[in-house]
């Protein structure tokens, strides 16, 4: 009897459940991505800069301009144009005919609101008010930014790196909601709208009324974009091989062999380094500690590291060695080649030993490691967060190189929070760090390298963790900020001076360029960006901040595979 009742209940459940319609997304109209989301999507607030769900800013919320790092061009997006109508006034002409995805018209009111709210709420844009005087709405489609002190490079960074938010929705939010609200049901102007999310994925649905359809003739083919939460390397690799991701932005070991292996997986370059360089991996040295405060010691370390080993063995050639100036390949035109030739370091253990000897470092107790000129023992550690497998292996190479020239350097792998703690509070000896991504200007790099005042570094969390104190460098970084965007020669002049300081003093040592990891599958979608002549040269990345560096254009160029 009991059994019969159970059976009956199960039967009813099944019949009932069969009647509920299941939404299944067609493979041919879905674009699968992965590589950004490290936990279930938890926020759709574009001001939650490090944690908003993949695509919140870029697919849903948009910016005034796009920036193309490979051609160094700004592409008008929500703004039609931006001009300095006087030395201190920047005028933005806002695009007409754009609608928020709830139907409301997008006007200058929203742009002014976006700038104004940065005054009251502490968000990414807030620092602009240090040099911005006021924002005026001239008419429904014109906004003027009146600066007290125009910092051109910095503005050039804000205009593509900031989401424009709808006034009619955000005006009623409290300051707390603005900075740390969840931001459900995001209303943006972008090509995609929120469809659904669950523990393992984020689903975006195409916005049928996207303004760029008519204004720029852009029409992204995928109807749905589904971003999957990151899993272990093992699983991600397996799924890439099986073509279950269309675009994957994880660091995946062995990608070189996968690309050659005939799985239909491609990367931007068909040959090493396969990936576009996205940021520089620096060896930070803590200049508040001995002997890191000795420039000779730093020079010796720089000459002791065999970066080729890291590039070839640890990374299997998917990265490339960094230029001694540390600047990314996209900024090649700013690198003062003559200066680098003259002052730049390279792998040269003999020279490293000579530098150490010349500066007074001798192995007094014959243990194989040198002591400081004053006789004190040297025992240093280089740290990276535990679990960052490629870095863990890389610092082994670094420490082996140093040990071979007599510097007692050991690799350590604290958990990420400890690593972060020692970085912010300058308790580390040496560490690897790659904070700054590619951007519209090398100024972001130098601002990071020469961040000041030193006392505030722990709370500002924006660079110079080695506590390098050089007034000249600080002043030059500020001077660079004041060079007009587009004034290549002006920028080169200042950058050259900055490079000289960097190359002679070596407050931090650039090792290699970490890639903008990007593996694409041609199983369902094709026409990916590549270095080939007949492909587009956009960025295939879903990482936060990359959609508006032409990621969205990459999306619009995709074609369904035959």
């Amino acid at each position, binding site marked *: 009897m009991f059994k019969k009742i159970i059976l009956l209940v199960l039967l009813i459940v099944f019949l009932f459940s069969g009647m509920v319609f299941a*939404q299944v997304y067609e493979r041919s109209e*879905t674009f699968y991505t992965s590589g950004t989301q490290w*936990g279930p999507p938890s926020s759709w607030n574009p001001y*939650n800069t490090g944690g908003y769900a993949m695509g919140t800013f870029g697919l849903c919320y948009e910016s005034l301009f796009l920036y193309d790092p490979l051609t160094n061009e700004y592409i008008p997006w929500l703004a039609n144009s931006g001009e300095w109508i006087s030395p201190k006034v920047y005028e933005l002409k806002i695009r007409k005919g754009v609608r928020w995805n709830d139907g409301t018209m997008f006007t200058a009111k929203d742009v002014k609101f976006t700038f104004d709210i940065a005054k009251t709420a*502490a968000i990414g844009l807030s620092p602009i008010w240090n040099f911005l005087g006021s924002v005026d709405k001239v008419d429904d489609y014109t906004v003027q930014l009146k600066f007290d002190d125009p910092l051109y490079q910095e503005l050039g960074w804000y205009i593509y790196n900031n989401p424009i938010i709808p006034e009619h929705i955000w005006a009623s939010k409290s300051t707390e909601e603005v900075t740390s609200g969840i931001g459900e049901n995001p209303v943006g102007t972008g090509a995609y709208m929120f469809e659904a999310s669950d523990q393992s994925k984020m689903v975006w649905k195409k916005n049928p009324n996207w303004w760029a359809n008519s204004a720029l003739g852009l029409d992204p083919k995928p109807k749905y974009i589904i971003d999957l939460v990151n899993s272990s390397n093992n699983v991600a690799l*397996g799924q890439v091989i099986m073509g279950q991701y269309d675009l994957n932005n994880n660091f995946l070991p062995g990608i070189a062999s996968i690309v050659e292996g005939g799985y239909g997986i491609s990367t931007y370059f068909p040959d090493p380094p396969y990936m576009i360089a996205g940021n520089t991996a620096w060896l930070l040295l803590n200049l508040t500690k001995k002997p890191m405060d000795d420039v000779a010691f730093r020079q010796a370390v720089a000459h002791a590291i065999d970066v080729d080993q890291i590039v070839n063995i640890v990374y299997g050639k998917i990265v490339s060695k960094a230029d001694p100036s540390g600047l990314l390949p996209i900024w090649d035109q700013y690198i003062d080649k003559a200066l680098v030739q003259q002052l730049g370091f390279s792998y040269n253990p003999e020279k490293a030993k000579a530098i150490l000897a010349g500066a007074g470092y001798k192995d007094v107790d014959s243990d194989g490691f040198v002591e400081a000129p004053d006789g004190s023992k040297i025992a240093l550690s280089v740290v990276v967060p535990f679990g960052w497998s490629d870095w863990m292996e890389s610092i082994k190479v670094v420490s082996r190189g140093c040990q071979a020239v007599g510097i007692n350097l050991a690799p350590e792998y604290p958990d*990420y929070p400890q690593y972060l703690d020692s970085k912010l509070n300058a308790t580390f000896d040496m560490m690897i760090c790659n904070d700054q991504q590619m951007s519209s200007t090398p100024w972001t790099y130098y601002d990071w390298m020469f961040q000041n005042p030193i006392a505030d570094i722990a709370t*500002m*969390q924006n660079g110079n963790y080695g506590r390098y104190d050089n007034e000249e460098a600080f002043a030059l970084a500020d001077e660079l900020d004041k060079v007009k965007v587009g004034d290549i020669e002006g920028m080169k002049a200042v950058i050259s001076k900055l490079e000289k300081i960097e190359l002679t003093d070596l407050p931090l040592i650039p090792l290699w360029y970490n890639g903008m990891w990007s593996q694409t599958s041609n199983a369902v979608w094709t026409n990916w960006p590549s270095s080939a002549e007949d492909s587009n040269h956009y960025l295939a990345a879903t990482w936060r901040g990359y959609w508006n560096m032409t990621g969205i254009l990459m999306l619009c160029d995709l074609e369904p595979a035959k």
Partner: protein
Amino acid sequence: MKQYFTRKLFIYILTFFIAVTIDWLIPRFMPGNPVQVLLARASLHAEAAKEMYSYYTKAFGLDLPLWKQYLNFWIAIFHGDLGTSILLFPQPVIKIIMRAVPYDIFLLLPSILLSWFAGNKFGAFAARTKWLDNTILPVGYILTATPYMWLAILLGWVLAMVFPIFPLAYASSPAMIHSFSWIFIADYLWHWFLPFASLFMVMFGGWAIGMRNMIIYELEADYSHYLEALGAPRKLVRRYAFRNAILPQVTGLALQLGIIMAGALVTEVVFSYPGIGYLILGAIQNQDFFLIQGCFLFIIIEVLIANFLIDVLYIIIDPRIRIGMGGKSA
């Protein structure tokens, strides 16, 4: 009976209290600052970070004296408020856990219970004949000795990559959103199978061996010989033996529930299965105080409840305890 239960309940509550206090203490002994981590992940521009720092410290109540934080913790628990996560900011911890719990229940309950039943049945079989004993037992030993994650990854590799029969990861298809429908349930089960299988196989081995040993003990006890001498059918003797042998297995089940978390955590990580174990690992790696606390709180409650239920079960199964409670024990 009443006395037995009240005493048990008292002990459970005491254990709960102590365990929860330790749970609260744990994240606070970790050096480092969760607000710092949160801000670093936000990669805000300098000035904004400075302001947000004090804001978050207040918001998380980290600037209050320790005893006040402790008190607030208990008050909050009874309100069902477990704080805000740092890893998945700004989602509330209770929400995050609640979303993960169903996955855990669907994965763990069947694997624990089914492996227990099947393991005991097979273990009892094995004790019948020498031939069975020599085939089933080695399999049991090897299975129970296999590390969970090794088996999980192997299964994943063989059954999802080499022979693509099952999916490699996640709890449901990327192409589907939750719905209470045939297709979804079928898809869910299809994804569920490999994690379930890896847990099941290892636990099965353990129970099988345990049961086999217990049965053999019982079959050699005096009462068994006595019944045999009386001419009772072998089946009857085995049935009595089974009932006696099952008792320590029930205790074992209670203990198993406590440690299954570790195995499940690893399995969930391997298959990216979004249960609590998966959350814990992320919380640990990111020093998410509140999420760590919340997850462990759930585990503690889970284990205590399960233990309590098993104690009740024990009373039902073992008449000696019932009788022992009625009168005085020797």
